[in-house]
């Protein structure tokens, strides 16, 4: 009934035939992207709740008899509301899950070489999504304005200020003046709840549109199946109703797991960190910033060079050049690993020794830089750790490459 009413006005039937009948591959790793998308939905929903109660200001107000910044006070009050702390933790957990699933999704695309022609554009859009999500997390971090937030943001402020030539202007643009000043929190609030989510929504829409246009890649087994049956269509299940049911169940399962974690596992306990204070205790960033944090520890302090009036300092190398190079390397992959004909089947990673071993080496390298974030715990000298950070990935790459080569020789 309702469907007919709507159909007569909006031509829903056409839409249904065109989009809802799309096929979706059944392999579970194709759900990783969805996991990221669903985490984002949760973030928006919980974010709206937080945004309605949060106060973006560093004015000093009285909270239980002591003077603290209004932003900090408002988040402490959120934590005291029924379910308030749980919503805040769901927000934070979802941010972690979103970034973790983007990373594994990216790894899946890399190892199955689904980034190759014709999907180079979507690989770049995906990288954009990854970077923007990191930006979302980073701007969210400052908002509770605890000692932890302020220290983390202050470090980022000086990193951006250290950029040669444009550092001064860049840091003032990002942080709305010097940090800490009363300009930064309102600016980050707008970035975090408006600008960055808007960019994310735009990029997600683009990502999905391109996906629908190009269709998914398929497991290579499908090629054989199709060739013997003479079929041409993608093998999989239709979006409506099968995939929608699977996705919804998946989403509710995710919500269940996240709520469970939020209920029992504390995260970012700002009451423990306290409002901004003179001392800086031992603190480490969320895991996805560990590589940058670790790399900052590795670059020796006397390593700096001057060119054309600008000074490239260890801070710039660790905090700006290192992540920029990582993203650049990822971005050029589809343009180096080229094929002539458009490819629509995923490849078996075991059959691609070069790319697979490079991917594993790169992953191990990131792992090593993350471990460097803990070198004070292991009491390793930065110099020694630097050596390991270079050597271990090389060894991992070598072993992996040799094994895959042997495997493929045997296969042939």
């Amino acid at each position, binding site marked *: 009934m309702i469907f007919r009413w709507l159909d007569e006005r909006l031509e829903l039937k056409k839409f249904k035939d065109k989009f809802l009948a799309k096929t979706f591959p059944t392999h579970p790793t194709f759900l990783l992207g969805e996991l990221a998308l669903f985490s984002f939905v949760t973030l928006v929903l919980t974010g709206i709740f937080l945004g309605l109660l949060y106060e973006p200001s560093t004015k000093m107000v009285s909270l239980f008899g002591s003077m603290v910044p209004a932003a900090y006070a408002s988040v402490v009050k959120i934590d005291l509301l029924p379910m308030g702390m749980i919503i805040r933790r769901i927000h934070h957990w979802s941010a972690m899950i979103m970034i973790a699933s983007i990373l594994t999704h990216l790894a899946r695309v890399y190892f199955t070489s689904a980034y190759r022609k014709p999907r180079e554009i979507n690989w770049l859009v995906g990288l954009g999504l990854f970077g923007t999500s990191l930006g979302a997390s980073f701007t969210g971090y400052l908002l509770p304005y605890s000692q932890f937030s302020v*220290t983390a943001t*202050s*470090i980022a*402020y*000086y*990193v951006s*200020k*250290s950029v040669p030539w444009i*550092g001064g*202007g860049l840091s*003032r*643009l990002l942080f*709305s*003046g*010097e*940090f*800490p*000043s*009363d*300009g930064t929190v309102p600016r980050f609030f707008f970035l975090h709840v408006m600008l960055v989510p808007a960019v994310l929504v735009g990029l997600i829409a683009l990502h999905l549109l391109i996906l629908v246009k190009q269709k998914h890649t398929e497991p290579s087994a499908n090629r054989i199946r199709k060739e013997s049956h003479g079929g041409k269509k993608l093998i999989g299940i239709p979006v409506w109703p099968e995939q929608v049911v699977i996705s919804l169940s998946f989403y509710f399962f995710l919500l269940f797991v996240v709520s469970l974690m939020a209920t029992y596992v504390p995260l970012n306990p700002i009451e423990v960190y306290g409002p901004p*204070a*003179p*001392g*800086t*205790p*031992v*603190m480490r960033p969320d895991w996805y910033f560990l590589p940058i*944090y670790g790399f*900052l*520890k590795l*670059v*020796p*302090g*006397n390593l*700096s060079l001057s060119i054309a009036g600008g000074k490239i*300092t*260890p*801070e710039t190398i*660790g905090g700006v050049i290192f992540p920029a190079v990582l993203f650049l390397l990822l971005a050029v992959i589809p343009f180096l690993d080229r094929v002539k004909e458009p490819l629509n089947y995923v490849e078996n990673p075991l059959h691609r020794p070069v790319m697979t071993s490079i991917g594993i080496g790169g992953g191990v390298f990131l792992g090593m830089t993350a471990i460097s974030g803990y*070198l*004070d715990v292991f009491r390793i*000298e*930065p110099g020694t750790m630097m050596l390991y950070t270079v050597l271990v990935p090389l060894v991992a790459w070598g072993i992996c490459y040799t094994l895959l080569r042997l495997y493929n020789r045997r296969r042939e």
Partner: protein
Amino acid sequence: MVEKSSGNKGEKTAISRRRITLGILLGSLAGAFGSLLALLKVLSPEKKGGGYEATIVLGDRLVYAQGEKAGTPLRAAALKDGDAVLAYPVGKAQNQANLIQLIRLKEKAFKPPTRLDLTDQGFVAYSAICTHLGCTVSWVKNQTSPDTSFTECFCHNSIFDPTRGAKVLGGPAPIPLAQVGVKVAEDGVLLFTSGFIGPIGPQV
């Protein structure tokens, strides 16, 4: 023949017209974005933050920077050999550039380039703002031999030697923490006897 050449001509004017239109489009685009660049300036206010311009002057008393005693005067008797504490010049706690670490060691523990004339009865003071990326440094006390205690920044583990002018012993900090003069006054409270003798805060 005639027809063909006139056809060519028409094509040419069409092309040049297209060129002109394109030129106008690009020109106005550049103009629009050029004027937007001015907005960047507006969006980057010169707003002063804590900054790193210390305002310590000779004779300022030292007060505790944190804890229950925050804001109350620091007495020499409160620190034993191997102790350290964060302090501000009295009334100037708003400016984080003024934050210092006051350390007490044995008098003979100090070696150059520590400025001995700026120490008194084993008290030495350095800027507490890490020269790497601006975290506050901490004191790692060695209970068994207090003179081998050191200053560490827990952010990226820069280590400074308090007996040698806060020389960098390890980690990413590029330069030592700047020393500042202190002395014990007759009534037992600590006073500043100089400003910082070197650059303070992140060297960016």
